[in-house]
């Protein structure tokens, strides 16, 4: 491939690839991810049953969305699920990760075992707990998935069971990079273990916490599989999070216009959550963590 036209002369530009090299990747990603996002927004203003052509209907789907009680409940559930999962996973993964960052043999062995749930797919894990929570078969012979609080907590737990290993690993990596000298200085100043944890470990892990949090928030929007298999949104609609509502509207009721409105709304919620995270944690930190990766 010829080297692109040289605008700058000298060694600084010698042997640099032409930007055209990036084009196949950009086009591919744009076609399968960015264009569909725009298309989802367009489809939200149409009526489409999945077979014929979409016909424009103006704001109908959005009006329906605003009036839909299930949507309000679903939004609330999505936010609640994200928040509950964040608390559950962050507390445990942070503590386990910091503990596992120590270099003892038993920690290495335990960390290896802790990682095993992450090797199973979400589908496999949802099926595993579907079986273990079955009132006729399971460990606890009570209909946990039949009660709305139980079903919600089961989803939080199953999501945590799957993803805590991964976040533990992230925190373990972060904790290992904290300079040892900080702890030595603190010990000389007489700080105890708990003081060291709150004054050194936590502040030093703030970028790691941001990275992990962003991954968790984006990840908790994908609890769709767990919900579909474990509860089918039930009992009633008590665990029907936004992605599940979208799936039902589109691929069960064949109302793809309305499904697109929910999907567009989902993007807005995801962006909103990201913006809140930006405010709370500073996206600058996130970006530098990313860039330093």
């Amino acid at each position, binding site marked *: 491939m010829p080297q692109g036209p040289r605008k700058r002369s000298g060694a600084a530009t010698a*042997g640099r690839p032409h930007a055209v*090299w990036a084009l196949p990747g950009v086009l591919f990603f744009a076609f399968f991810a960015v*264009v569909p996002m725009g298309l989802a927004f367009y489809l939200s203003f149409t009526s489409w049953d999945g077979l014929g052509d979409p016909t424009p209907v103006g704001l109908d789907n959005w009006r329906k969305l605003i009036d839909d009680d299930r949507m309000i409940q679903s939004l609330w559930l999505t936010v609640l699920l994200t928040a509950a999962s964040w608390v559950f996973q962050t507390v445990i993964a942070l503590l386990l990760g910091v503990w596992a960052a120590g270099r003892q043999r038993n920690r290495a062995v335990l960390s290896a075992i802790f990682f095993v749930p992450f090797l*199973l797919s979400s589908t496999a894990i949802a099926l595993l707990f579907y079986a273990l929570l079955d009132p006729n078969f399971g460990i606890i012979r009570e209909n946990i998935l039949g009660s709305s609080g139980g079903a919600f907590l089961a989803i939080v737990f199953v999501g945590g069971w799957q993803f805590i290993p991964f976040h533990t690993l992230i925190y373990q990596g972060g904790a290992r990079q904290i300079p040892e000298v900080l702890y030595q200085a603190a010990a000389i100043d007489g700080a105890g273990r708990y003081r060291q944890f709150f004054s050194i470990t936590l502040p030093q892990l703030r970028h790691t916490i941001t990275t992990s949090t962003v991954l968790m928030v984006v990840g908790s929007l994908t609890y769709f*599989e767990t919900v579909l298999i474990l509860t089918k949104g039930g009992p009633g609609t008590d665990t029907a999070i936004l992605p599940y509502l979208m799936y039902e509207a589109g691929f069960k009721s064949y109302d793809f216009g309305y499904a697109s409105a929910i999907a567009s709304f989902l993007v807005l919620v995801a962006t909103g959550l*990201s913006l809140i995270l930006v405010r709370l944690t500073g996206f600058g930190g996130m970006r530098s963590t*990313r860039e330093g990766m």
Partner: protein
Amino acid sequence: MSHDTLPRPRPVRTEKHDTRAPTPRRRHWTKRANPVAGLGAVVWLAIVIVPIYAMLSASLTSQDKALTGNPLTPPTSPTLDNYNTVLNSGFGHLLANTAIVAVAVVAIVLGLSVPLAYVAVRTRDRWSGLAFRLFLLGVAIPAQAVVVPLYLLIAKLDLYDSLLAVILPTAAFAMPVSVLVLVGTLRDVSEELYEAMALDGASPQRMLFQLAVPMAKGGISTVVIYAALQAWNGFLFPLIFTQSDEPRVLTLGLFNYVSQFGVNIPALLASVVLSGVPIFAVYLVARRALVGGLMGVGGK
């Protein structure tokens, strides 16, 4: 290590339950026993192991015994019948499809992301900066949000109900993280090495294959693992873009077993165990690379 030889005064202890003798000089903060943390780790160990144990034990139990006993009691007369049932119901076909998807996704992601990341690091073009930012934003696009329009695109491309309908979107959604990881590692290749090669008259593609790729091996293996896991675990795209037996992948096959096996929970669990075996085998062989690669995601 030098810090072990530093004189260390006895720390002033504020916690009243901490009544141990003065810390010996050679002890390191991370090596001091922390009973609370140790106990927590053991509790989590139980939470991890009990479901896995219950799954293995139940998958070895015949169906009638499974319904009367508790999954926590070890099977009295273990049987492999459930595994036979699963293996005889097309499991090999599901596995082969999933392997094809995983290999294709990894190939596409590497083939497209490596040159892209290389350009993002090496050119000072304003377009390459823009491309990089596109992928930074791409991390936040939830696949659920675009599944309806993708369904339309897949149908218009005449790809519905084929393995390609699963492969292409899965690869696209694995790209943002892959590009970010690759940019991170390629950035660590020092400019002097490129300059030395440039003085020798090396072309950009020679630099890519003889310098950048070998130096970025760590990042590349992380991307391989990440993309393969995405393909292996993918559920939404297969669910929506395929329907017949021919292109069915493992996750969707598992999902269908629920209706197929009905109340035969031991067979269901045997299928879950079998679905985990290949990836567990990879984990045993390549644990270091796998864990090390993923650990880097949140470091620094």
